[in-house]
């Protein structure tokens, strides 16, 4: 049986790919700092890879007090087994109270394997994390059984239709995978330094080591929609891949980027990396234009945290109007080009 009192500190799996830290690692560090405060705990980044020590300073700038580096040639390209061995060994050796992993393709593969290996619970795809009590309210007569300083993990389920808050009161670490694009990174503190610990549990290939025969990378020059301040997003209502031109012109005029709904990706009009929603990316820009998007619940789950949502749709009853601050019922083919024209005119007037 675990002595859960031994488990201290908030740990973050600092995902890197090709020796470049993934954005999710910084987001998790930002959240870890929030969680560490009421616990009066340290924030530790766990960096796993080959020849990755150079990345420690960046992690320090984004909030890591300490970095545990597992550096080994076996860890060059992500594979479940050596990575699971690395992270599980770190957990067993350093005993974190909380272990956060990004809900990326890598994290959603690594997290379950590691949680099963260290025999703890794992809550998938969290969108909110807090420190609080479990149960939330004390049970009358059993007040002393309520546990404090627990990680409360909130996640959507049923395709975003329900929401559950989950705790892991009797096992450590409390593990969660966290949706990319939801947590806020801190402004980097230039020159910040972290304590660096090098740790290598040893890697001996066994039956679980999968051999990588080939790695094929897709080359893309599309900027990440998760970084955009303004998104001009199109749905099936845009009508054709060619017609996305009017959205691109609006995006150029207003300084934004184009994104899209799942229907657009399924029709082959736009690549998957531009997709917003449950099976795409979660975005929270300052302004989200939903143009010709009906607003299926799976789409809304990926964009409802945007500061301002402006919907343009000819269907007055489209569910997108239920989440939009400003809804315009109208023909996007007329409204969007006119909007672009007026924005350009306004910019010119200001510049003059």
């Amino acid at each position, binding site marked *: 049986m675990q002595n859960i009192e031994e488990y201290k500190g908030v740990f973050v799996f600092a995902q890197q790919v090709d020796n470049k830290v993934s954005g999710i690692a910084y987001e998790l560090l930002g959240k870890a700092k929030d969680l560490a405060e009421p616990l009066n705990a340290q924030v530790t980044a766990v960096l796993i890879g080959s020849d990755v020590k150079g990345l420690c300073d960046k992690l320090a700038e984004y909030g890591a007090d300490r970095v545990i580096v597992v550096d080994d040639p076996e860890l060059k390209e992500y594979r479940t087994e050596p990575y699971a061995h690395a992270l599980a060994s770190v957990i067993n050796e350093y005993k974190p109270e909380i272990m956060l992993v990004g809900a990326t393709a890598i994290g959603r593969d690594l997290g379950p394997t590691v949680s*099963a290996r260290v025999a703890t619970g794992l809550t998938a795809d969290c969108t909110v994390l807090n420190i609080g009590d479990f149960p939330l309210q004390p049970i009358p007569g059993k007040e002393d059984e309520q546990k404090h300083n627990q990680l409360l993990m909130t996640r959507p389920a049923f395709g975003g239709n329900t*929401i559950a808050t989950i705790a892991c009161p009797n096992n450590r670490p409390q593990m969660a995978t966290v949706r990319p694009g939801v947590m806020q990174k801190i402004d980097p503190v230039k020159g910040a330094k972290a304590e660096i610990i090098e740790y290598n549990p040893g890697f001996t290939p066994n039956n679980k080591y999968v051999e990588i025969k080939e790695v094929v990378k*897709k080359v893309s020059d599309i900027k990440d929609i998760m970084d955009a301040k303004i998104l001009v997003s199109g749905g099936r209502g845009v009508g054709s891949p060619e017609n996305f031109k009017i959205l691109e012109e609006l995006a150029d005029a207003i300084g934004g980027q184009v994104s899209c709904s799942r229907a657009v990706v399924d029709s082959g009009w736009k690549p998957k990396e531009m997709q917003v929603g449950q099976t795409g990316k979660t975005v929270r820009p300052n302004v989200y234009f939903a143009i010709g998007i009906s607003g299926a619940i799976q789409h809304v789950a990926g964009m409802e945290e945007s500061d301002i949502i402006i919907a343009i749709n000819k269907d007055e009853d489209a569910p997108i109007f239920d989440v939009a601050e400003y809804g315009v019922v109208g023909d996007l083919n007329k409204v969007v080009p006119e909007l672009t024209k007026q924005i350009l005119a306004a910019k010119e007037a200001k510049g003059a």
Partner: protein
Amino acid sequence: MKVIVCIKQVPDTKGGVKFNPDGTLDRGAMLAIMNPDDKAGLEAALRLKDQYGAEVTVLTMGLPKADAVLREALAMGADKAILVTDRVLGGADTWATSSTIAGALRNLEYDLIITGRQAIDGDTAQVGPQIAEHLNIPVISYAQEIKIDGDKVIVKRQYDDRYHMLEVKMPCLITALSELNDPRYMTPGGIFDAVAADITTWGRADLKDVDDANLGLAGSPTKIAKASDKVRKGAGEKVVPDTPEDAVKYIIGKLDEKHVI
């Protein structure tokens, strides 16, 4: 070659989501279906049957009524079906579910275990990898293509900006994406036979090498503190302008008000 496919009966959330007047989910009105990723996993297994003569067993854990998805799988072409059902297994989280299914799988011979990547009710994608961990076999998640080469399996695995061609010696566990294939339909003869087919039913006592402490609600490390149907943020303004110019005037006004332009 023996292939086991783990499947789950789920409420249909894609398109078929129904709401009560108060905005909560109307679960009773939703159809129970075979989870789509699992169905793709089953199709992949049936193709191995077509190609290599693999024997395909389907296994599910659930309420007694979950035998419906097993019969559907038999009607599609699976050879054997096992239902794991017991009151003490209810309320399981992914740890307890994977412990249960691993306990059932220990009774069986297999070269390959296929699960769906994730179920559309929980969306966790955790049970497949956790089963592999309990059985101490390798896992390859997000399979897009599956090929067999002697005692090895070759899988195309997709993530983010790249894919990997991976090779591993069997036994291993693969999680399938619904993008993997288009599942076949049940055949009329298959449906006829499936209705009458024997389904093996296992309870707690049939699980091998599993501690009671790892089963059901009590054996679940994660506990639900609160669950509710999602309350959507309320609708804002909706205008129906007479002309595109009026529409644009309205939008520009709002963008200006919010200092976007």
